[in-house]
């Protein structure tokens, strides 16, 4: 049966129902058309501005510049898209990836040589070893600082409430002068509700930050390897009474994907190993809660992995259920490397 050209098609799973060549031709024609329309529009603009034979010239105003910029945008988009698509003709995804990998290796020229060969797509975790600990070798940094969260909540609450106050002042001045603004006055109610929510969120963050003191996590070695044991030291400061305090080793998968025009991130806890779970813990500024544990990495644990859109993270999570302060959970990333040496397993 002869293959007829199809202007559109669809993917069936990982299989493309149409011929790839048709898609390439379609894209090239689209960008070529954009480019030609751009050239035509730019020419029209220039000819209109500098007409030959003594005709009237187009006046230079806002409309002239908008038309010129739109024409140039069409020209650049069409020309750029056309060049990019033509450069990709005949290059498979494997070939492009191989070229990119070769470019990365060229960029390494001139850098100081590492003592150990880096593992591809495994975070080296060098930054985790920058801070020495007091009890153990390394103090782990927290993945998110509570100060940043409090500052962000404060900015949000202040901006929103500031705008609400300005709108309220406009509404009150209207009433004062005898020219009320009913729509604005009505809108002040829902806007005020959102303002109250932002203020409460800010206060909650502030309470958590002020009431729940610093958490310190130190570890005896970095990076970690499966089936190995390490010493772990955890200290919790502050003045609070906890119903439960938990320390666990968590492996989390992370995926970044596009949904329409949005970029979304999804996370899933692949495994969680409890290290400590203690009930009714009292902490005051004079006697912080301090414990040292043995941390054993599971024998068949997946190593830490990082690629542009996917990742496998390992972290130590310290979480507490407390009253009257809100519950908290703080993460301290660690890096797990694969065991030395890797091989293949034939499926047959």
């Amino acid at each position, binding site marked *: 049966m002869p293959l007829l050209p199809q202007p559109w098609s669809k993917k069936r799973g990982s299989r493309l129902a149409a011929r790839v060549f048709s898609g390439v031709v379609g894209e090239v024609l689209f960008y070529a058309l954009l480019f030609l329309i751009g050239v035509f529009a730019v020419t029209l603009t220039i000819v209109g501005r500098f007409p030959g034979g003594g005709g009237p010239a187009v006046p230079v105003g806002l409309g002239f510049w908008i038309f010129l910029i739109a024409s140039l945008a069409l020209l650049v988009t069409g020309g750029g898209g056309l060049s990019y698509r033509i450069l990709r003709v005949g290059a498979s995804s494997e070939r492009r990836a191989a070229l990119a990998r070769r470019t990365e290796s060229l960029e390494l020229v001139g850098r100081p040589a590492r003592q150990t060969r880096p593992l591809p797509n495994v975070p080296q975790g060098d930054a985790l070893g920058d801070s020495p600990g007091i009890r153990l070798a390394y103090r782990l940094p927290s993945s998110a600082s509570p100060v940043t969260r409090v500052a962000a909540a404060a900015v949000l609450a202040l901006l929103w409430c500031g705008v609400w106050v300005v709108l309220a002042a406009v509404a009150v001045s209207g009433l004062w002068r005898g020219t009320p603004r009913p729509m604005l006055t009505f809108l002040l109610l829902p806007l005020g509700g959102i303002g109250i929510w932002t203020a409460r969120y800010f206060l909650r963050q502030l309470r958590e930050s002020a009431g729940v003191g610093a958490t310190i996590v130190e570890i005896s070695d970095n990076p970690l390897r499966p089936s190995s044991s390490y010493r772990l030291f955890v200290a919790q400061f502050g003045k609070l009474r906890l119903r439960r305090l938990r320390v666990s080793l968590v492996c989390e998968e992370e*995926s970044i994907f596009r949904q329409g025009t949005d970029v979304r991130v999804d996370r899933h806890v692949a495994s969680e190993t409890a290290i400590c779970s203690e009930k009714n813990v009292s902490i005051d500024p004079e006697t912080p809660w301090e414990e040292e544990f043995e941390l054993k990495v599971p024998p068949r644990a997946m*190593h830490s992995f990082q690629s542009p859109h996917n990742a496998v993270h390992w972290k130590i999570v310290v979480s507490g259920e407390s009253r009257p302060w809100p519950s908290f959970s703080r993460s301290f990333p660690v890096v797990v490397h694969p065991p030395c040496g*890797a091989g*293949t397993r034939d499926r047959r």
Partner: protein
Amino acid sequence: MFECTWHVERLNLESLQGIELSVLWYTEGKGDEDLSVHFFRRLSAARLREIDLSQPQKFVSLLPESPVSYNGHLLRIRWCARMRLFLSGGQEIVTELPFTMHAAGDDAGDRPTPPLQPALESPATRSPATRQPV
């Protein structure tokens, strides 16, 4: 050390414009696909005329220590040897031989594995420009 043998049959060799051989890993799952090529070789049409494609050809590659194959909830990491044949008229035939890469000393006997794929041969029965599901 990864060693792979391939040959081409049931295909008009005159229509072959080139062959690309690669060893790579790619991700599957909820996130956008990531792909990294560890080994890549392109055989041009002139080179293909010099070798007998019906006889087994071999390539060898030393695999890196990471990433190992992984079968998670949001993310799966697949390793495969991939062969892409370029035919006249812009058509392409792609075939894959997946394999599992594991860390040394890792007993992955109970780890779920994808179904076995056919060897790198007999592409003539396959539709062009497709990739077999792993």
